[in-house]
């Protein structure tokens, strides 16, 4: 893949917060079609790194490029046409319907005075259907359950239709069926549309199943990145989570369970 501009590139990136450094001199390149899992303990800096990669927070040093350009050079709106970000926590200060909320994802595609067209509505309805919220259009978001809100956030992201998906715990609050369905959705976007996906996960087995590569953040400034097969081993994961794990293989898939 040499010569091709990566969808996401981090150069000698150092990220920290409040005097604590999470990763030092990280080099990372993500091509379209690739899926990267980001794993680490609570507070290891996964979300902070992801928001730096999303251009929402400045790194301590180094630079982040999407599609070969920095966020500053692109500006907020053109950046939003390339990368989408799924936040871990959301707060809704005001009431709003599910449809209105998902329509927000179309913002970067609309002109300054533009209103959402029938085509935008169709894109949003398809996104809602894709996350199993087709019949929820008129529901107030404040009446949704945690899992439904999570799927609505994913629908908003799908409506945005970026090429790079930066997902902070995309399967938080979801039941098992929807966990797999959502991860299939993003794996499909990578496979069929050439999207790049980087996601924070807490379940190494799902990282093993849905990602090509993994970034391990140890929380003390050390980071390791490599292929999923190379990174997701019992030794590395036990060290990462500071708890002994055991691998179970069945039907060609691996699970990691605490000893």
């Amino acid at each position: 893949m040499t010569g091709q501009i990566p969808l996401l590139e981090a150069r000698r990136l150092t990220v920290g917060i409040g005097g604590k450094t999470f990763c030092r001199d990280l080099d990372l390149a993500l091509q379209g079609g690739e899926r990267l899992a980001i794993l680490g303990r609570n507070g290891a800096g996964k979300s902070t790194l992801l928001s730096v990669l999303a251009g929402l927070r400045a790194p301590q040093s180094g630079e982040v490029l999407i599609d070969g350009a920095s966020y500053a050079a692109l500006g907020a709106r053109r950046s939003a046409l390339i990368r989408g970000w799924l936040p871990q926590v959301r707060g809704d200060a005001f009431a709003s319907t599910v449809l209105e909320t998902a329509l927000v994802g179309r913002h970067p595609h609309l002109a300054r005075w533009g209103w959402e067209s029938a085509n935008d509505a169709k894109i949003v309805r398809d996104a809602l259907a894709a996350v199993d919220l087709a019949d929820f259009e008129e529901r107030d978001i404040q009446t949704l359950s945690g899992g439904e809100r999570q799927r609505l956030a994913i629908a908003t992201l799908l409506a945005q239709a970026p090429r790079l998906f930066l997902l902070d715990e995309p399967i938080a609050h979801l039941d098992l069926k929807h966990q797999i369905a959502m991860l299939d959705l993003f794996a499909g976007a990578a496979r069929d549309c050439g999207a790049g996906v980087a996601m924070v996960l807490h379940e190494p087995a799902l990282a093993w199943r849905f990602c090509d590569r993994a970034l391990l953040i140890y929380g003390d400034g050390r980071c390791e990145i490599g292929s999923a097969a190379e990174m997701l081993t019992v030794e590395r994961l036990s060290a990462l989570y500071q708890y002994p794990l055991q691998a179970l293989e069945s039907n060609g898939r691996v699970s990691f369970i605490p000893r």
Partner: protein
Amino acid sequence: MPTRRRALLIISALALLALASMALALMVGSINIPFHDVVAILFAAPDSMPAEVVLSLRLPRALSGFACGGLLALSGALLQVLLRNPLADPYVLGISGGAGVGALLAILFGFGLIGVNGSAFLGALGAMLLVFGLAHGDGSWTQTRLLLTGVIVAAGCGAAVALMLSIAPDDKLRGMLFWLMGDLSQANDPRLVLGVLVAALLVCLPFARELNLLARGADMAQSLGVPVAPLRRGVYVVASLATAAAVTQAGAIGFVGLIVPHLVRLAVGNDQRLLLAASALAGGSLLVIADTLARAIIAPQQLPVGVLTALIGVPVFLFLLTRDPQAGR
């Protein structure tokens, strides 16, 4: 599904309400003038006593009231989005407090109307810069920090106002109290506030959809393509100047800036493309109606209009709050 057609329909209906409130304000008072006479006066400007009352007393006052109500409601709507707090109002960031200190100082020293207005505006501007400077101090700009700074500055201004009231001579006390409660009786030149209202709306409307996103959170908005930092600064400055202009013209009229954006939001939803203009029209209409009642109820005596805005707004708001929340959707 928000559409331009629905927005235009609602804006047109509110524009009619605004016209009706203006007509009412021109007809009603210590002498009542029938509607067709008012129309004749407006178009022909005859030289008569009713014409004098309508053109030099009621019309400037009604237009000032409309502009001030519109400015306060617009500013409240903007600050509720900026602070992501439904309880924010134009005065929460200390602007009316600053204006109050300025105005009362001027009254205390016996300045005329222009001196009082100028001093109130300087006070509002001072409070605005103080809050912005303090909240912006370390570059981070959280809503909580801004809100707390504003509340504290407002409290400080409140103390200064109380001090001045307690040492003021009796003959000046009544003027001071009326200023603090909000009063349109001195508002006889509406051009400046009307200009500020039009300018503020023109500046805000192109950014209305970005404000929709800002209401959903700064990071969310940034990731969807909103340049959050400059937008926030802009909203703060516009909302502050709108409040300063209204407070300078009419004193600290309460309630309009908090309740009108809520009323409009409950009735038509939280799309700023519609909400900002609708709030301005509804706020202007409410203040004109309230001021008309303030002039008429115990005419020729006049009540402070702030009392009336609260008396009208509270029952309407409670009614909207208790009805079925899905009915209006």
